[in-house]
């Protein structure tokens, strides 16, 4: 069973309805090959990704630096150029929207950035920062704005004294709360969280992760949660997708993927995670070499160059994301998946 069919099958069942579908998404960038050269090369940052998020999902997207997580997230909010494929929100295409449609999508799908230091204008008061969207989308005016802003700020842990302070006066964790308030006040459906805690300390990270879980329930949100921290992903998500070099190589329920990883890359990734328990034996597979760049990638399986179990076919034919194993939701793109 291919992943796309699976998506369709799902819509007909009594599961939660599908909120977001990404179909065969490709995002290419054209870059200049050397510094002086006129030759151009293609960066295949996202290279044929299928995924679907049901309402209420926290879908965790993991993978190493440069595998295309941010590019995928940005494509959903219309910030990366879609070269091919479809993105559907509640069944309606949101690729290439303009005017009023783009405006409405911008309300429904909110992106929270990694860096709480650069994503907020330092010279604006918290009240302005959080309220601006309400004005922009005509959702409230006058004193209503201040009222709603205050209510939302209270929800994320501030009080009235904070209302007229400037963003630069706040710590990283507090700024991330402000970003959240700013997104939530627009009553979005989908929140794309791009490494929302990786700039924060662990003690502060825990506060933000807890808050995220609470507001997801309260506001009936769906999350696309991007992180390279496997521990955070495991704690936050009910389903996850593992990306490698622009491809989704494995996806399934979090517990299935963590306990029965099928793709050799997922297995290596999980084994690489150092454990804080000094008594856990480290049973580690070390990879050779570095991840290849997505600039004009070779044909075949994206992981073939580093895969410990590579076979000739892997270098010729790209494996499809198909169902393996016992769990109905577990899909892997590998010619020789580990199925137990």
């Amino acid at each position, binding site marked *: 069973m291919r992943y796309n069919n699976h998506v369709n099958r799902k819509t007909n069942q009594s599961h939660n309805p599908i909120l977001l579908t990404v179909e065969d998404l490709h995002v290419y960038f054209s870059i200049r090959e050397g510094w002086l050269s006129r030759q151009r090369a293609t960066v295949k940052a996202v290279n044929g990704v299928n995924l679907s998020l049901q309402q209420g999902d926290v879908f965790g997207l993991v993978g190493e630096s440069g595998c295309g997580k941010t590019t995928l997230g940005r494509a959903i909010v219309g910030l990366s150029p879609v070269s091919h494929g479809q993105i559907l929100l509640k069944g309606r295409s949101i690729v290439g929207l303009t005017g009023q449609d783009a405006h409405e999508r911008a309300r429904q799908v909110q992106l929270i950035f990694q860096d709480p230091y650069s994503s907020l204008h330092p010279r604006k008061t918290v009240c302005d920062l959080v309220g601006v969207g309400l004005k922009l989308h005509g959702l409230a005016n006058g004193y209503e704005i201040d009222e709603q802003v205050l209510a939302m700020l209270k929800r994320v842990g501030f009080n009235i004294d904070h209302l007229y302070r400037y963003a630069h006066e706040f710590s990283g964790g507090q700024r991330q709360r402000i970003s959240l308030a700013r997104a939530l006040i627009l009553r979005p459906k989908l929140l794309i969280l791009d490494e929302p805690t990786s700039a924060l300390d*662990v003690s502060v990270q*825990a506060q933000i992760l807890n808050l995220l879980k609470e507001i997801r329930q309260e506001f009936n949100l769906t999350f696309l949660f991007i992180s390279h921290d496997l521990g955070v992903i495991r*704690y936050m998500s009910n389903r996850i997708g593992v990306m490698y070099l622009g491809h989704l190589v494995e996806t399934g329920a979090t517990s299935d993927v963590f306990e029965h990883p099928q793709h050799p890359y997922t297995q290596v*990734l999980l084994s*690489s995670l*150092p454990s*804080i328990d000094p008594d856990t034996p480290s049973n580690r597979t070390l990879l050779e070499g570095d991840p290849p760049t997505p600039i004009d990638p070779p044909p075949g399986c994206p992981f073939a160059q580093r895969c410990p179990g590579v076979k000739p076919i892997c270098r010729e034919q790209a494996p499809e994301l198909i169902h393996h194993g016992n769990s109905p939701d577990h899909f892997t793109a590998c010619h020789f998946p580990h199925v137990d």
Partner: protein
Amino acid sequence: MLLKDTPVTTDKLLSVQDLRVHFHTLRGIVHALEGVSFHLNRQETLGLAGETGCGKSVTARSVLRLIDPPGRIVSGRIIFEDRDILTLDDTAVRAIRGGEISMIMQEPKMSLNPVIRVGDQVAEALLIHDTSLNRSSARTQAEEMLTQMGIPEAHRTSRRYPHELSGGMAQRIMIAMMLVTRPKLLIADEPTSALDVTIQAQILALMDKLVQDIRTSVLMITHDLGVMAETCDRVAVMYAGNIVEMGAVRSVLKDPQHPYTQGLLKTVPDKANPDHPLYAIKGNVPSLLQPQNHCRFSDRCEYAMARCSREIPPVYQMTDDHEAACFLHDGQSISSGGKQVDLMNP
């Protein structure tokens, strides 16, 4: 010299005693280190853990006397073998840097020279260290080192410039450069934090092998408690300019004695039950603009008592190799800190 043969000196390679470092900024004096004491035995890896701004890098840089204005080492002693680094003259300190003590910085690309081929940078480190060496044999040795670091096609790679390499490769070059001179002490400041986990695993395995081969002691700075658990023999946990707990890695991670360490370990989401909220330490890290006059963790601590906000807790000794600076352990013997190391100083 005779002292070299006594057990005390063969054991301890580095001993830092009551180190205080301040930064004079526009906002006021940042009291970055408020009396940091620890020691490092030969062939041992000591981890320095703690959150952003707690003073890990400042501690590391102080050991090499690399604190530039507006920073100032206000007081303390840094005894390396039998010398106090803080009282040596500049020439002697320069000889120690890059020779007996090497430091790997957090950002590999920033610490490599962008306009020199990476092979030449490694060779250069050798030439500075051993003036009797000629250029071509230094090059050959450098390439051998790169091969040992698992760099494919070392000969070709050594002719490339830092910007042509990935982060993982650049970090390997950096490590090669720091270890090629066989230092007695390697200070590694977050050597893998900028790297992906699979690359981190490669680099840590390589470092481990090299460190064993040349019997170097390591001061390993990391905020990743997992990395710490895997690489260190002993660990010191820092909070807001103090070491709050120190001991053998197993006992600190399995049986933490300071409320901050306990909290820190509980906030790690790795093994947490997704159905329960994560444990979170309330509040934020305190400002360092006030000189310390009480326990800096007290306003976030679940167990805080009246005296915690009035007095600075001494370091209590739980076992031979486990100590914590917390009044909860009042009644235990008070550690003499690094003081007994005075023996080393003739």
